[in-house]
């Protein structure tokens, strides 16, 4: 295992680890706001939860991008021959 591969493994771990923080915080805020809204207006729960799911999917994509970058670094690294 040469230096490039070792750094790649570390880079993958850092990418997923740090990249999950932002979406985690964002999803937490979104769910909290949706809970608040449902508690205030239970009759709008259907619309709110549908919008929430779509919004969560959007936020989650950022974490998924990090995961894909990590996989590219691990399995399809352009610097490893």
């Amino acid at each position, binding site marked *: 295992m040469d230096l490039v591969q070792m750094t790649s493994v570390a880079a993958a771990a850092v990418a997923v680890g740090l990249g999950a923080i932002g979406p985690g915080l964002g999803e937490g805020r979104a769910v909290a706001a949706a809970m608040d809204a449902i508690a205030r207006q239970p009759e709008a729960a259907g*619309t709110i939860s*549908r919008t929430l*799911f*779509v919004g969560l*999917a959007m936020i*989650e*994509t950022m974490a*998924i*991008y990090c*995961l*894909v970058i990590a*996989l*590219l670094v691990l*399995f*399809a690294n352009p610097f490893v021959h």
Partner: protein
Amino acid sequence: MQSPLTTEVLFLIGPIPVTTPVVTTWIVMAALILGSIALTRGLKLKPNRRQAALELLIGAVDAQIVETMRAPAARFRALIGTIFFFILFANWSSMVPGMEPPTAHLETDIALAGIVFFASIYFGIRQQGMGGYLRSFAQPSLIMLPLNIAESFTRSFSMTIRLFGNVMSGVFIIGVVLSLAGLFVPIPLMALDLLTGAIQAYIFAVLSMVYIGSALGGETGQANEKRS
């Protein structure tokens, strides 16, 4: 460990290699087609129990389409419903031993997002006409033109990556846990995978509805109706 970005060639038809996800897709398609034919045989005006359950299901799909797109459900039921049920059963196909979800490979997701991309263009042109559809890219002002064009590509890309990442990460994590811990440990993760698969199918269907619905030109369409 096998890379999730490559696919395994199962056999060759002439010069064309056929990979495992393609065969799984065919199996899922065959199951869906045969299942629909078997379930819709002998539909009656006075429904029996099976038909009532089916009508409930289709009614739920219709209600989602009407609520999200604000358009008549009959035009989009076939497309959206097929997308939803195909992704749902493709994600759940990992429950069959030896099968891997085809959506855990990038090619299937690119194809699905491509279908939505071309469907939004088709429905947009059919609804607003060629000129109206092209003009909708310059809404609300001409400065937005490059952004709107870029958006129509990036959202297909993000749909692809979202479905691929979610399903593939589930499969990958189960593989890692299985190789580390042994036979029965990944069962709770597989249960979580069922939930993720259903949510991802729902999200993909909702996002296709949103994108196709935005191509129909909500505000501009209503404005035209008011004017005429």
